[in-house]
């Protein structure tokens, strides 16, 4: 009898331990789920092989003739006059990829020109449904070769899941896609 009671107590303790373990695993899983990057669900398109265009609109908010952008030491105001007429270069890469100087990896390239604090850059029809990275900079300081140099404005969005740090993500569905870049998307390179 004593043995039986001992076994019952033992079983009860085991059950409590199991419940606690289950709760711990569930909590850990919930925390993991918050951190997990789920791929964007892709729509079923009538013509899934059709390639679409991406339009990137740049739409800065102007205050007192300047646009405020990000730097590591806080906001920085760039005079609109320094942006007007400047070239915009954009390279489009598959999701999660960055440009490392190997052009065979680029899906599309597009260029444009700033008009005051606004611009629109459009690609050719090159994109199947999916997610892509837009690596874009405004050549605010002319010269310095093909890439961005100090003083240029580079686009980024670290708010997305698994950001690259150097691009803005855009999703292409069953038609042409568009993304608008605002002040918060630009850092002084």
């Amino acid at each position, binding site marked *: 009898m004593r043995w039986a009671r001992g076994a019952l107590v033992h079983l009860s303790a085991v059950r409590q331990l199991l419940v606690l373990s289950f709760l711990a695993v569930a909590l850990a899983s919930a925390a993991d789920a918050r951190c997990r990057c789920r791929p964007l669900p892709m729509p079923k398109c009538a013509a899934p092989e059709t390639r679409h265009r991406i339009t990137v609109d740049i739409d800065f908010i102007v205050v007192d003739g300047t646009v405020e952008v990000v730097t590591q030491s*806080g906001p920085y105001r760039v005079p609109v006059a320094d942006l007007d007429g400047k070239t915009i270069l954009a390279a489009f890469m598959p999701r999660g990829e960055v440009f*490392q100087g190997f052009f065979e990896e680029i899906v599309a390239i597009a260029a444009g020109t700033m008009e005051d604090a606004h611009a629109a850059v459009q690609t050719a029809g090159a994109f199947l449904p999916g997610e892509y990275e837009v690596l874009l900079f405004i050549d605010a300081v002319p010269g310095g070769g093909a890439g961005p140099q100090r003083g240029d404005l580079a686009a980024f969005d670290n708010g997305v899941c698994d950001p690259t*740090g150097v691009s803005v993500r855009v999703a292409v569905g069953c038609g042409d896609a568009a993304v608008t870049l605002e002040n918060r998307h630009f850092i002084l390179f």
Partner: protein
Amino acid sequence: MRIVTAIALVALVGSAGAAELRYPQFPTLPRAPRDPTNPPTPARRNLGAELFFDARLSGSGATSCSNCHVFNTNWQDNLVKPRPDTSQGTDFFTLPFNTDSLLNIVYRDFFFRDGRTQDLGHAFTEPWIEDNQQLGKTRAEAAARLATILRGRPGYVARFQRAFRRDIRRLADEEVFDLAGQALAVFARQLVTREAPFDRWNAGRGTIPEAAERGVALFVGKAGCMRCHVGPNFTDNDFHNVSTSPPREDGTRADEGRARVTGKAADGGKFLTPTLRQVVMTSPYFHDGSALTLADVLNHLDAGTAADPNHDVLVGRPLGLTAQEKYELYAFLKTLRSPPTIARGPTGRLCNDAAAAALRAALPQ
């Protein structure tokens, strides 16, 4: 004997598994070594996280470690020369160097590209003295200012008490400074990236693209990258000169590199070999960020231009790589990418902007 090299040798000699690796020169990175003098308790780690994200601990009150070592972009910033704190400079102030990723810092023998310290805690207090965060021009000045800020916040007093069982109100300024460095070191020791696709393929599991397979053969062969980038963390933890800071006409350099520490002219322009793990995501490259892309790096090393009289003899000749071979080397480097361990702080796992915002909102008052 350097720690990581020793670990690599032990892994090579002592493990039967190592013999099965396709490239035993690159054994799997072991679990992060522990520092018995600074145990990684949750209290220290959480305090370290709070110090790391607390911009109030800077000259401007707007710059924290996390401004440049961005938590969700491999603990670096992808900028050429950052301008983190402007409290004592102009608003276009720049540092002379590229932000180093903190990933795998736990495996290093030296910190900073000139290797000025071998103590991780000390490394974390340096930015408060230098131009990064500008708490003071000297160690004593920065320590006094940091200690004053921390002592003025009961939340921090309690956290230091919990983490180190020390009352920072009764410690000397420099002791507080050192404890802050130790807490930051515990936080940083969890920032690890290991077990990339290459490691699985190297151990006979999984696949990598054929171009990458050819790339690793070039890496250990014709390209000679392995002369410096070797071992489980793809670095020899040593200093080399690859003509990235050659002497100017007056004999000075933009950055003296290792010579700043040793005082030896022969060390001029030498910099610490960086890890190649996660390298595809940590542009720009070289100590000064002068190479924007890996193609730029490969072109520089391929040219073998010894613009510096100290140019390392190990890498001082043209490699004669074709464009295809450079692409294959790049394809191999891509296989060294793996999701870093997600750091933990007092408010949970630092996996997204919301998590970082929660930590910032709960900083000690």
